[in-house]
């Protein structure tokens, strides 16, 4: 697999002498030497224990460096990895583990699984790879000589993933309430990684100097179960740099967050626009306090002019990129270097032009297509006329970033979303994004969704997913979830719920052990949210719950969402 070969190549330059840090998280660090050796050893173990097996493996945990050890070990031993964040509610985690249906689970954080599974705990993993917590002074010789020679031959005999096989699988919100596993192949990941690394290298304020020895430090804000994290992870790894992960408990505590940000010596920032908005509330968040920070890469939601302008004032000498792409097409497929001129004239900001190997098309209502020209090496060939401004329509993404295998064990959904597209005599693998947008020249503009999928603080959420889970709660008869907007952006979610025999003073006994007459709507809403939190990750929880006694219907018997909104 190309990406593994490239990682091996860069790692070989990082193993000698005092091996630099590859991954840092809180007060934990793993050097390149450790990452490389430990993932080799774990791969050998997986290969010996499950010879010939090529099933995906769930890697459960948060942002520990050992997550990445596990990811590489999976790929090196011929398994796709499926990252699941430990902040997810247990029920959702278990559903994913059941769907993947591999008895082998790598538990970087503890998880209670029944006897049908053969999970490996972090303690066991550390034992398997001869991890020594005694790192002062770190004994590199033990890894490279005695340790390495013992299993060198077996590492050579490993059968790593091929480029056409799935290398990672990320579960996203599904409209039926069932998360969908998006399968990304080795060639998908390589195409993405090469592009993002070339982009940063050729950026006007690139942190890379001429020699390839520069070690960039990248911010990792998103959990590994959110594919935005693949942007910082693979950008840092492919350039032999350092992934600087900020744990969730630090993100949640501004004091710790800014201490961490100001001390990490970051070169490249990768986050959702919402996260940078949070950081901009601190006035010291500027180039004086983060002098090394030269590149900002945003993905997950559209960067607003307001956020850009603020950020540009704080970091006038940094390059700020807006990018766009769904999980199904490998993290991101368009980029634009936003400038003050662009921000002054374009509202909303464009999400950019297609990466090499990818073509963006707009499908209008009649099925007509407007496509971007073929990009060659990042530049548009001079002979190809740039597409004229298109009308609004569905964004279609075609090319080498589009998931080869589609959704895990969901052939019907895969067949609906993925298709073969013929453009100028060439056949491309293509994906129906369900996103609305238009093209102006080669620049793509994002306008929203065609369905009830939304982006809240960068997280992709199917409103139907929340609704189905609400309906699972005892006593809930009808449920609808609607976004509420501020300044044209989704600000929070409101759940509208009709309960069986609901009355504020006589609550359905199913919902809770309610002998409490003082239980009013506010309390009930609180209980409902707590119940829902057992089923859904917290970013999907509605902030408000409104109880509805008369469920409003339209004339043809559909839920009248407009009238629901009017109830508040």
């Amino acid at each position, binding site marked *: 697999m190309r990406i593994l070969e490239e990682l091996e190549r860069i790692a070989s330059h990082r193993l000698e002498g005092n091996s630099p840090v590859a991954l840092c998280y809180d007060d934990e660090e793993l050097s390149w030497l450790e990452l490389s050796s430990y993932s080799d050893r774990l791969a050998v173990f997986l290969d010996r224990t499950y010879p010939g097996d090529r099933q995906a493996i769930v890697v459960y945990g948060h942002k520990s460096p050992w997550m990445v050890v596990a990811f590489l070990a999976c790929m090196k031993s011929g398994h796709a990895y499926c990252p699941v964040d430990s902040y997810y509610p247990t029920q959702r985690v278990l559903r994913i583990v059941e769907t993947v249906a591999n008895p082998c689970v790598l538990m970087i954080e503890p998880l209670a699984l029944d006897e049908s599974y053969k999970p490996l705990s972090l303690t066991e993993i550390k034992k398997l790879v001869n991890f020594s917590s005694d790192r002062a002074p770190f004994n590199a010789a033990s890894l490279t000589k005695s340790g390495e020679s013992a299993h060198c031959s077996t590492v050579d005999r490993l059968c790593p993933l091929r480029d056409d096989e799935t290398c990672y699988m990320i579960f996203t919100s599904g409209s039926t309430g069932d998360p969908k596993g998006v399968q990304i192949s080795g060639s998908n990941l390589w195409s993405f990684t090469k592009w993002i690394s070339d982009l940063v290298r050729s950026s006007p304020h690139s942190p890379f100097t001429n020699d390839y020895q520069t070690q960039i430090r990248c911010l990792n804000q998103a959990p590994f179960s959110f594919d935005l994290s693949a942007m910082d992870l693979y950008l840092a790894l492919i350039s032999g740099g350092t992934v600087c992960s900020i744990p969730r408990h630090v993100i949640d505590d*501004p*004091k710790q*967050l800014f201490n961490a940000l100001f001390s990490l010596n970051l070169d490249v920032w990768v986050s959702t626009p*919402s996260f940078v*908005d949070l950081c901009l*509330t601190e006035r010291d968040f500027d180039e004086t306090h983060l002098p090394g920070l030269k590149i900002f890469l945003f993905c997950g939601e559209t960067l607003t002019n307001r956020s850009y302008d603020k950020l540009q004032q704080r970091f006038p000498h940094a390059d700020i990129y807006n990018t766009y792409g769904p999980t199904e097409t490998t993290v991101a497929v368009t980029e634009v270097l936003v400038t003050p001129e662009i921000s002054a004239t374009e509202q909303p900001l464009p999400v950019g032009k297609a990466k090499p190997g990818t073509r963006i098309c707009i499908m209008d209502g009649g099925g007509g297509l407007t496509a971007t020209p073929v990009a060659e090496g990042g530049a548009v060939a001079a002979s190809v006329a740039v597409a004229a401004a298109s009308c609004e329509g569905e964004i279609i993404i075609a090319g080498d970033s589009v998931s080869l295998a589609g959704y895990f064990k969901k052939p019907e959904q895969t067949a609906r979303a993925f298709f073969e597209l013929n453009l100028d005599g060439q056949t491309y693998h293509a994906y129906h994004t369900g996103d609305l947008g238009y093209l102006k020249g080669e620049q793509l503009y994002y306008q929203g969704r065609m369905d009830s999928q939304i982006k809240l603080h960068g997280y992709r959420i199917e409103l139907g997913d929340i609704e189905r889970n609400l309906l699972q709660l005892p006593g809930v008869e009808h449920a609808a979830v609607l976004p509420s907007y501020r300044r044209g952006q989704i600000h*929070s979610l409101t759940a509208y719920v009709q309960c069986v025999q609901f009355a504020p003073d006589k609550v359905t006994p199913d919902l809770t052990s309610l002998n409490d007459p003082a239980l009013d709507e506010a309390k009930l809403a609180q209980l409902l949210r707590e119940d829902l939190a057992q089923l859904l990750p917290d970013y999907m929880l509605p*902030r*408000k719950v409104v109880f509805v006694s008369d469920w409003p219907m339209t004339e043809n018997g559909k839920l009248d969402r407009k009238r629901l909104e009017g109830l508040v």
Partner: protein
Amino acid sequence: MNENKGTSDTQAAQILKILAEICEDDSVMTDRKVDLFKENLLDSLSVTELLVELDDQLGIYISPAEIEREQIRTPELLLQFVEARSKR
């Protein structure tokens, strides 16, 4: 002094209006003792939004690193906290 009192009254009203917008609930303008976190009217994300609005609309800057939940647990406490800040 009288003039100051007048300003801070209007300011209090403005702060409450911003709070109500962020909480999406007008009751916080009248019920000044409500526990904003317990009642799920505020969470860490919306506290950030609140700080942005206070800065943008009223020019009151509070660093997110120096604010504790206890200091803004109710609308009343929030008003006291902001008032103490703007006197400095």
